[in-house]
């Protein structure tokens, strides 16, 4: 399962296409629209969370781009829920940037947000599911 928050900008030629229906039917994706606006000159902006298999997701995005839709992913931030994290260290196996590391000899697991690239690998690798993706809501509202 793969999920990302996207902003889509439509040129006026595609505003009338049943894009979202196609994403569901042809690409087996599901979505959750957070914002949809059509501007006076008939361009559209939509912010949605698109989910599905990673491969279908990529095909869906390719489809959107082929129609001339500008697709951008929205800024995401990774946070650690300090109550849920039980300081095991399992996440350090997957973190590519060293943002999650173990301080020795205490064996405390540290999360350095500055080093985090928001790759999300730790999110599902953490047994306690303490690593969370937060969307930058300021872009949506």
């Amino acid at each position, binding site marked *: *399962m793969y999920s990302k928050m996207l902003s889509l900008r439509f040129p006026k030629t595609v505003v009338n296409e049943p894009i979202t229906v196609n994403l569901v039917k042809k690409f087996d994706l599901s979505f959750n629209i957070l914002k949809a606006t059509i501007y006076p000159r008939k361009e559209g902006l939509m912010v949605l969370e698109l989910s599905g298999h990673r491969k279908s997701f990529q095909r869906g995005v390719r489809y959107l781009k082929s129609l001339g839709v500008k697709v951008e992913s929205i800024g995401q931030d990774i946070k650690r829920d300090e109550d849920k994290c*039980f*300081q095991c260290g*399992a996440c350090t*196996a997957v973190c590519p940037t060293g943002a999650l590391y173990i301080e020795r*000899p205490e064996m405390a697991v540290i999360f350095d947000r500055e080093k985090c690239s928001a790759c999300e690998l730790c999110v599902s*690798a953490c*047994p*306690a599911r303490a690593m969370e993706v937060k969307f930058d809501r300021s872009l949506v509202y």
Partner: protein
Amino acid sequence: MAQKKVSRTIKDINRKIKEGKIVVVTADEMADIVKRKGPRKAAREVDVVTTGTFSPMCSSGAFINFGHTKPAIKASHVWLNSVPAYAGIAAVDLFIGATEPAEDDPLNRVHPGQFKYGGGHVIHDLVAGKKVNLTATSYGTDCYPNREIKKKVTLADLPYALLLNPRNAYQNYNCAINLSKVTKYTYMGVLKPNAGNANYATSGQLSPLFNDPYYLTLGLGTKIFLGGAKGYIIGPGTQHNAYAKRGKNGVPMEPAGTLMVKGNLKEMDPKWVAGVSMLGYGCSLAVGLGIPIPILNEEMARFTGISDEEIFTRIIDYGNDYPQGEATSLGQVSYAELKSGMIRFNGQDVPSVPLSSYVRALEIAHILKGWIEKGEFLLTEPQEMLPTVDRT
């Protein structure tokens, strides 16, 4: 001058606890004391050594009685938050296992599966005081005519809830690496290809059974720290194997002893019984467990004085060998090396990754130490010992 040998009983220890004269140290402090002063002096000074471990322990679960309903039901299938529980017991008794996934879980259909919610999470939610949806169905009998009930329950509503873990506190565990060419998602965590990382469990020198390698002081009836409350050892756990290969110091070098434990779920704290999701593998429960080891004599001081450099485990390939049922050792590695963050394997530096929380294990050893010092926790005599082997 020949000094008298140290010999004390659990009764002596409890008397000292009541008199407020008890000397308790954690297992990592004991390692240091024995190194500096030797086991004889350490035995004279220290009465009890506390241990701890906090790790996913799959063989865990809870026996629950949910109380009779009106009209009455003899439940044959039960779900808690859509996680199936075993209901083939009496009318309203059930066992919820930690690794049971929710019934509608996509499992590994999209590999690696997320396993977001399962039996371990149900137990965690109950202990956290959350409402849980209980559904029970039945075929109906003359005495129990009801065929279906649905209700929300909290731990406080349940007449009886017992954490009963058939296998916890493994004495030593494999160090897992992956020699295949693709990433493997295992119960030992995510293993990157070509020996990309080496994952290990157990808290080493703090781990309960490393401190009493021949099970000389514990058995059925030993009171322990379990899930933040007081619990008991009720016997050897499933797969308990005293015959494992041991080092000269008596400490097993591969998975060996295990414990079956129980405790009142209602007294537990969600911090110490946490639902976990192992990517691509399944659900489980992380359990906090600590055992006080009485220093009955010099030998127990020597055993509890063990440190990470003297404890070894074997390296197993979870890429090809283990899935085929071939657990061939590819070499030995000490816990000191594992804890350093890097091990040497086949001339290659491999980052080592813990699955078991050392920070939490130490916290447990300290809590247990505090309970004993304050006189809130007395030691108990085991009524039946665990299967063991002769000391070498």
